[in-house]
């Protein structure tokens, strides 16, 4: 029996308030469910091993990881705190995706500038991207040594997909915007700097998001093989001495690291988008 009434000035109408309420409720439902899933996962992980439904030796459980973490904080394998191991992995990841972004953008720009180059290299890029790069881990170790092979693997995993994503982004710029620049007599370099590149910011962020995850994969895989520091090394070490607590602690930290890196990019993107 509600009657539509004109809203008083400076005040939301009743149907609009109802709409806002519904919106807020559905947003809360999504957030609540997301938190709920995490809690359910943690509870199962805690309860199932403790009830010996799964073997705790294989999975460990969250409450057991906290003492392990505190112990590793003081001193972990190689006489280093787990923070040093984390820092090493994060640093290598940041180097990896920064390099992949810089090189990827540069190479994509070159491919855009010299169309012939793209036509020649296209099949090789596609194959290089599809290759299982992890197959090169032992070779990279021989070629590049313990430390550089980690950066190498990080770059190898993330570079080709970065090139392809960014190049495709360049291709998707409205050709009419290019024509517009041409009406003023723009050179190809000017078309790139005035139209293609600034128009591709959303693509660059999309590439960066993919990149961060892949760089982390590359670093951890590299560390599994060759490092004496890093979370990948901790995982390798923990499994060799069958201390699953160490392995699970390292994996949990990796999960947190990827969330933090992703959140940072998300915030950066929001800041840049607001400014533009």
């Amino acid at each position, binding site marked *: 029996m509600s009657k539509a009434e004109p809203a008083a000035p400076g005040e939301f109408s009743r149907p609009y308030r109802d709409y806002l309420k519904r919106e807020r409720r559905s947003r809360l439902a999504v957030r609540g469910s997301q938190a709920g899933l995490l809690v359910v996962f943690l509870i199962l992980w805690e309860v199932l091993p403790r009830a010996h439904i799964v073997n705790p030796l294989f999975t460990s459980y969250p409450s057991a990881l906290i003492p392990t973490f505190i112990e590793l904080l003081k001193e972990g394998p190689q006489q280093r705190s787990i923070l040093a191991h984390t820092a090493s992995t994060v640093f290598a990841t940041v180097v990896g995706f920064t390099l992949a972004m810089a090189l990827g953008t540069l190479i994509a720009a070159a491919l855009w500038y010299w169309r012939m180059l793209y036509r020649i290299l296209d099949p090789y890029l596609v194959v290089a991207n599809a290759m299982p790069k992890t197959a090169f881990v032992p070779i990279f170790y021989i070629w590049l040594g313990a430390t550089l092979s980690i950066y190498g693997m990080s770059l190898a995993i993330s570079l080709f997909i970065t090139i392809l994503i960014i190049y495709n982004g360049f291709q998707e710029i409205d050709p009419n*915007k290019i024509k517009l620049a041409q009406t003023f*007599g723009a050179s190809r370099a000017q078309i790139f700097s005035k139209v293609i590149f600034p128009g591709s910011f959303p693509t660059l962020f999309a590439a960066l998001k993919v990149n961060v995850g892949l760089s982390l994969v590359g670093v951890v895989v590299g560390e599994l093989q060759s490092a004496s520091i890093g979370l990948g090394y901790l995982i390798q070490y923990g499994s060799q001495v069958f201390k699953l607590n160490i392995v699970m602690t390292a994996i949990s930290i990796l999960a947190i690291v990827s969330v933090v890196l992703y959140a940072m990019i998300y915030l950066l993107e929001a800041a840049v988008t607001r400014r533009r």
Partner: protein
Amino acid sequence: MPPAPGGVTPKLELRGVNLRYFSPAGETEALFDISLSIGPGEFVGIIGQSGCGKSTLLSLISGILKPTDGAVLVDGRPVTRPGRAVGYMLQQDFLFEWRTILENAILGAEIQKADIAAARERAAQLLAKYGLAAFLDHRPRELSGGMRQRVALARTLCTNPDVVLLDEPFSALDSQTRLALADEVYDILRRENKTVVLVTHDIAEAVSMSDRVIVLSRRPGRVKSEHPIRFSAPGGVRPAPFEARSAPEFNAYFNRLWRELEVHVEG
């Protein structure tokens, strides 16, 4: 060459221009033997059915495309690449969403490496004249279609070209905005004494704005006929486009061009 109307040196001339497109699938003849002569300050409308090469003709005049045969001359000099003498306004505004309104308006000056400070000043003046003074630092998405098209006009005129090419500049707008903006653009271009080539498929638009209407045939586009447009205006002043639509001569011109275009509705 026939002398331009009024016997003055033509501002813009096309001499036996042919254009053919090549693709692996074959060869397409887009324009055939186009010869035109347009005097300084003249407003010429070009009409023809879609696909007849109207827009291509503008790309040729601007120097984005090169003719397969023949020559395009501005001020008697052949056009080989886009230059400052010719401004080209496209069908839509294509404003860059990452630039502010003012930054969009000075794009041409930036590309032509002109004095940026002077360009900013001129662009700000033009935008103020078009009622956009309050929007200089806004983003394109905050503007209506008509406002955006005015920004596009400011962008075209900011580099101060003598010749302005309009490629269906109002086609993306709703009909009220279209009529109002046509009057405005017409007034601005006349006042600045620009030589204008307007391409459109809208007969009424062409008649209401042009001194002369050229009809292109179906592909390959060639000049089918030319029609000087005169309105017996009080005081010898040509009526503004909106007024011209209700002038006594308007319907006769419209009907003649309609027959020339041989519009057939398919199906």
